């Protein structure tokens, strides 16, 4: 019985117990449903073993939306607790667990997969390819992410949630001050998901560099693809730092090493250093694809070529390099001297310049364009002023001397939410709405969509602008309560109303999905937005092979040219198409990784060794495998094309 004690929650509450029940019931319902409707075979052959980038993209999307819900509930709980002084809704321990999971879930398990979803679905189509360079690896990336997310998400019902912040600084995250397994979950779940992300980086760089359609030189690629290329380059060089860091953290917690301890030579601040060497490029990994989406949406709905193609590309490349040069601004107050702080202050302010270039280019694209305000365009238009507010406060924070006032106050919290939400979240919602018809064959309702966009953007302002003021007034971040005499009450109450508004806005999006699934017409064009790039030159639904004939391209707006200037996109005859086979190994290997991670978290050494062997066995099997894929015959292509064209 003692053995099972380790799985108990150190700090339970009614909400946690209720969640345990809810999770249990949901799992039972899902298993029962699949069995009753006899869908296990379908699930296995169509989704669990798929290597198709489009399906993988949709799985990432579903995961992201589910995680958005989890992170959002965390947020509402925090805002509710802080809405009035000395509130008793959450105690300090729970509050710590909630802001920790909110941060990790939103960044690693919501924003990252959302970006992966769009990159996976769109990039191969945009470059006129049939899939990514390494489809099997792509599937593995997804399942590793999924298992990492599952591992992290069960922490709050088995063993205890991490509670040292999403940044998990030592010595707080060490065994002396964080005794529960919560921080083990942090180290290991993120590690598993991170390995998947690194593989995606390698996959997409190779895909974009090597598999573009004939005629598509690098400088003729659509802007979203460029943003994907640069983002994946940052991933390749930033994520290994996280791998090493989490490994060292795991060793400190589980093997008694002294990397980050306060004795025997350990240096606790080294954690913060490496965390941000990874962490700062990470936020650019989040924002650059978002910028890519905005470029697509703005040029499509202003009916104009994107202004300043070359400077858009150049600015992203510069941002990618500079993003590795600014990390110390996250810990200006940690004890470095003025010279060090000044160097990083300058690099931080410098990185605002290429971002500004991009913003002006979008404005110039809008200027003299024939603007059509659809839901995606509305998000883009709302993004520009809101993100600017967040961005300029970033420059304020970047001045190291001034940062001594702002650091770790609510001012900082307001800054990063005011760049991430308008920057990344709006773009993801815009991308979701924009690409929805291509993914699912019907449009999301415009009226509900625009209404949600307004509610979400206005609520964002309402929720976070007061935080600038309360932060300047002295409210620290990560504090579970405050006394009435501080005067923070009114600011926090307004924030709470804003947060409630955000909840309403996101609920409306869910409602939109339900409503449109039920009522929207399935009789839509393959190119419903009258767009400009190759992904819209496919049928809806997109056949497995994407393009029956690979397109030949002669400009950066291949589809627009074909439509308006009579350029022949698909010259030539049908030929048989080589496609990869499905495989169960990614799912199985990732499931083994899940058990491996769980064993590691709870120091179950025998299962750990066995699952480690299992993982290597999977790799060995892959090495000896002789799988050359399959061919789709010309007859089959003809039949599929005729069916899709007819519809």
């Amino acid at each position, binding site marked *: 019985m003692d053995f099972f004690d380790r799985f108990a929650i150190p700090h339970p509450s009614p909400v946690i117990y209720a969640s345990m029940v809810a999770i249990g019931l949901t799992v039972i319902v899902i298993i029962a449903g699949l069995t009753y409707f006899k869908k296990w075979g379908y699930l296995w052959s169509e989704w669990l073993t798929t290597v198709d980038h489009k399906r993988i993209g949709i799985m990432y999307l579903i995961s992201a939306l589910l995680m958005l819900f989890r992170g959002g509930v965390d947020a509402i709980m925090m805002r509710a607790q802080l809405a009035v002084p000395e509130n008793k809704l959450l105690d300090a321990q729970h509050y710590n667990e909630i802001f920790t999971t909110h941060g990790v879930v939103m960044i690693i398990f919501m924003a990252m997969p959302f970006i992966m979803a769009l990159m996976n679905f769109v990039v191969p189509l945009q470059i006129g390819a049939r899939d990514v*360079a*390494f489809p099997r690896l792509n599937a593995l990336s997804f399942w590793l992410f999924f298992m990492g997310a599952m591992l992290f998400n069960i922490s709050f019902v088995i063993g205890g949630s991490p509670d040292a912040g999403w940044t998990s600084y030592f010595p707080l995250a060490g065994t002396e001050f964080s005794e529960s397994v919560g921080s083990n979950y942090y180290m290991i779940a993120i590690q598993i998901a991170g390995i998947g992300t*690194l593989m995606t*980086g*390698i*996959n997409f*760089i*190779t895909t974009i*560099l*090597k*598999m573009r359609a004939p005629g598509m030189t690098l400088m003729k690629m659509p802007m979203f693809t460029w943003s994907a290329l640069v983002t994946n380059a940052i991933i*390749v*060089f*930033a*994520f*290994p*730092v996280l*791998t*090493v*860091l989490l*490994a*060292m953290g795991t*060793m400190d917690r589980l*093997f*008694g*090493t*002294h*990397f980050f*301890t306060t*004795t*025997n*030579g*350990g*240096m606790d601040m*080294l954690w913060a250093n*490496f965390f941000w*060497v990874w962490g700062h490029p990470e936020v650019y990994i989040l924002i650059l694809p978002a910028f890519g989406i905005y470029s697509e949406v703005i040029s499509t709905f202003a009916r104009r070529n994107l202004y300043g193609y070359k400077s858009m590309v150049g600015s992203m490349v510069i941002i990618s390099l500079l993003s590795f040069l600014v990390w110390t601004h996250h810990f200006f107050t940690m004890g470095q001297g003025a010279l060090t702080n000044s160097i990083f202050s300058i690099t931080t302010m410098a990185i605002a310049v290429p971002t500004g270039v991009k913003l002006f280019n979008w404005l110039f694209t809008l200027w003299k364009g024939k603007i059509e305000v659809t839901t995606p365009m509305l998000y883009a238009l709302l993004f520009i002023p809101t993100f600017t507010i967040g961005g300029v406060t970033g420059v304020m924070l970047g001045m190291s001397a001034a940062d001594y006032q702002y650091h770790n106050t609510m001012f900082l919290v307001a800054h990063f939410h005011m760049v991430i939400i308008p920057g990344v979240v709006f773009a993801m919602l815009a991308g979701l709405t924009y690409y929805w018809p291509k993914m699912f064959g019907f449009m999301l309702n415009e009226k509900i969509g625009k209404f949600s966009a307004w509610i979400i953007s206005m609520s964002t302002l309402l929720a976070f602008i007061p935080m600038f003021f309360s932060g300047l007034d002295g409210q620290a971040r990560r504090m579970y309560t405050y006394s009435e005499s501080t005067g923070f009450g009114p600011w926090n109450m307004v924030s709470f109303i804003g947060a409630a508004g955000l909840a309403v806005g996101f609920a409306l999006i869910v409602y939109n999905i339900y409503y449109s699934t039920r009522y929207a017409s399935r009789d839509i064009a393959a190119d419903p937005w009258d767009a400009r790039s190759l992904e819209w030159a496919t049928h809806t639904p997109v056949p497995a092979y994407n393009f029956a004939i690979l397109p030949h391209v002669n400009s950066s707006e291949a589809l627009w040219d074909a439509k308006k200037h009579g350029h022949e996109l698909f010259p030539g005859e049908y030929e048989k198409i*080589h496609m990869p086979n499905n495989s169960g190994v990614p799912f199985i290997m990732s499931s083994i990784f899940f058990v491996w991670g769980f064993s590691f978290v709870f120091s179950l050494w025998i299962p750990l060794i066995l699952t480690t062997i299992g993982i*290597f066995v999977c790799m*060995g099997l892959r*090495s*000896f495998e002789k799988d*050359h894929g399959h061919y789709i015959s010309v007859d089959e292509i003809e039949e599929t094309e005729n069916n899709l064209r007819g519809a």
Partner: protein
Amino acid sequence: MKIDNSLPLEYSTEENSNKILGFWIFLGAEIMLFATLFSAYFTLVDRTGTGPTGAEIFEITPVLIETILLLTSSFTIGLGIHAMRIGNKKAMLTFFTITLLLGLGFLSFEIFEFVHYVHIGAGLQTSAFTAILLTTLGTHGAHVTFGLFWGLFIILQVKKRGFTPETANKSFIFSLYWHFLDVVWIFIFSFVYLKGMM
């Protein structure tokens, strides 16, 4: 699958060419992995707590032997790839086997070195310096170990299936991996051992 016969077999199909580029990018990521370990090493190198310093525990002879073994193995695998390119299966397999044996030799010396360190009080838990030292050396050693198994599997596949675009591609990629491990060792040899013993 279209084979371009003007190129060496390992590059000759589009898929092969993609895999080689993909692996180079992976090596870029590995550069950062080891860079992080080195950054931590240089930061923690003097933080020896109550434990020994590098100068007190490093010995030149085993380090030199490890270096010669690994450097020679990098040479022999290069010869192996050359043999593959001129179609000599027997020579390629021989060179690859020698490479793995040299690698095994390297690993044996390194394991012996670790055991020795633990005996003289420089274990993983002793101090920040020993933690990062053993982690850095250990990460490199773990990569070598993984390589021994991977290399063995490739030898078995080439033995059974001969030179096909797939086996040639895998052999070449493995050689990239092996050469890279030697490059990392050059830096370990110079900046961990030699610098520590200066």
